[in-house]
């Protein structure tokens, strides 16, 4: 594997680590399989790109994109809580709707961002070679996100959110408004995902409406792979595992891509990640029979 391939794995691993952290919050903490991310990831890219080509500076564009991602989370929560739609379906519905919405936002399926100032530009101006600039900024952002999530889950509010995922009935009996927890959790997770989309688009050089395809699978590969390799009960360890899992997945992919001799092609990795997703959805069912309550 060349240095470039390694850096490529590192930067995509870090960008998608944010989505993995979001998936950890929804799939693991809240026990809410949220498939909205297939729509909120490109939503972040679309909003950010549209704002950037309209003259907005990349930092503001990225921030606004993240906030709009939170709205996508609200939408799924609304479908699930108020309209009583099954959580998986609620996420899928929002993602489907976002496909058309993203097309509307961008006015076309693809917006190019090449040769434009991005959030990585200041780091390049500092003298960091453009190859490493995304890695530097993404590392900073991922670390901050991880710390914020770790702190949040240690607060009374965060503990309440964990209780909702672990045993919703007990949570309610202890005064926790489980509906509110789901709304907040989905908003945070999709906000991070949209942030990831915005950062990735600026790295890739374009926002494309099809960018969301396969995102949830990749995120879960990071969560499953990471937590399988680093099992722990401590939340800071688990979030670290998700980040490392995301990066390791990309490294595995880079390895597979660089040596065709092994026989693994990009399409084979799709099957492997699909299997990982199946495990992700099966584990909670196997473990907690009682805490399953009709939402």
């Amino acid at each position, binding site marked *: 594997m060349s240095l470039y391939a390694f850096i*490529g794995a590192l*930067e*995509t691993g870090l960008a998608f680590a944010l989505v993995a952290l979001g998936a950890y919050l929804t799939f693991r903490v809240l026990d809410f399989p949220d498939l909205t991310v297939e729509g909120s990831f490109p939503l972040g890219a679309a909003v950010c790109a549209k704002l950037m080509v309209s003259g907005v500076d990349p930092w503001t564009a990225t921030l606004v994109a993240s906030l709009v991602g939170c709205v996508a989370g609200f939408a799924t929560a609304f479908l699930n809580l108020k309209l009583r739609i099954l959580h998986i379906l609620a996420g899928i519905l929002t993602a489907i709707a976002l496909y058309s919405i993203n097309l509307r936002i961008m006015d076309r399926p693809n917006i*190019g*961002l090449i040769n*434009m100032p991005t959030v990585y530009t200041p780091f390049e101006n500092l003298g960091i070679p453009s190859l490493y600039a995304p890695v530097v900024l993404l590392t900073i952002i991922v670390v901050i996100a991880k710390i914020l999530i770790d702190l949040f889950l240690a607060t009374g509010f965060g503990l309440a959110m964990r209780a909702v995922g672990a045993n919703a009935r007990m949570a309610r009996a202890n005064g926790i408004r489980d509906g509110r927890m789901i709304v907040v959790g989905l908003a945070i997770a999709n906000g991070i995902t949209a942030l990831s989309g915005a950062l990735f688009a600026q*790295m890739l050089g374009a926002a*494309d409406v099809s960018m969301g395809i396969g995102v949830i699978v990749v995120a879960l590969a990071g969560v499953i792979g990471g937590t399988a390799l680093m099992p722990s009960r401590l939340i800071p360890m688990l979030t670290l595992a998700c980040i490392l899992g995301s990066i390791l997945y990309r490294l595995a992919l880079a390895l597979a891509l660089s040596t065709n001799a092994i026989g693994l092609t990009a399409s084979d990795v*799709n099957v492997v990640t699909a299997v990982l997703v199946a495990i992700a959805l099966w584990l909670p069912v196997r473990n907690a029979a009682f805490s399953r309550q009709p939402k």
Partner: protein
Amino acid sequence: MSRISTAIIGALFGAALGASAQAADAVKTMSIITMNDTPQLLEVKEGLVQGLAAHGYTDGKNLKIDFKSAQGNFGTAQQIVRQFIGDKPDIIVTITTPTSQAAVAATKDIPIIFTTVTDPVKSKLVTQEKHPGGNASGISDVVPTELQLNLVKEIVPNLQTLGLVYDPSLDNARSTVESVKELAPKMGFKTLESPAMGLNNVPAAGQALVGKVEAIFVPNDTTVYGAFESLVKVAQDAKIPIFTAERRSVQRGAVATVGFDFVDMGKKTADMVDKVFKGTKPGDQDVQYMKDIPGSLALYVNKASAEKMGVTLSPTLLKRAAQVF
């Protein structure tokens, strides 16, 4: 060691180095990335390889090809691009817009030839068509819509509304549709869009037009082409002629096209690659439009399918055709 021995060893060493350097020069390395490996895009790659063979570059002998598909996954595409840059090939060929954008964003050093991109300027791959400068240039697959629509009108004179079946998430399909919508009123007919968001929705998109249009036009759209036979069946049952923008689809059942062939586009791409190998940087090569390259457009018709769709092709038309299926 005597001075003569040192000289001989030094000479041998130098010769060996020189030989290996020459050997390295002799084998050209080309990395190709495509977003999807649908048949249409694979035809481009086929044409590219064939075209380079015609120029004297044989895969395996003096040409080393690394072909990768991102399988529709953007994260993978970014990784592939980085890997390519690490491999330091003599050239990177990018098929479709997103992979082209990823490559152009990632390197300013390695020569890039893009292909199957509809609007290189709008996609920010180049700043201008003529003499773009930089390290990238390529071929656009933009459709000659006016010629296409003229053909439609010729074969369907009573055309009042033209149905458009396409996947709105594909840049090039959308561009063509926009162009058709712009030309239609000037040519005296209306348009009716029927989007197909995925392979499975293609026949339904066709069904939605039955009874409302006299003809259907399909732009170069990998989604619709992926399920093209099902659309042809719908059209034949409803007796609505389908027109497309390239050759292979006519073979599969469209009535006619004044279009180009994707394998041919691959060959024209090879021409640009060859120029790079011979020393002309991509930045010094104008962006090419497939439809403008002499000899690349031709009339293809499918008589059997036309009859099933209730359309008779005039003998003069048949004579003009480069190929009748």
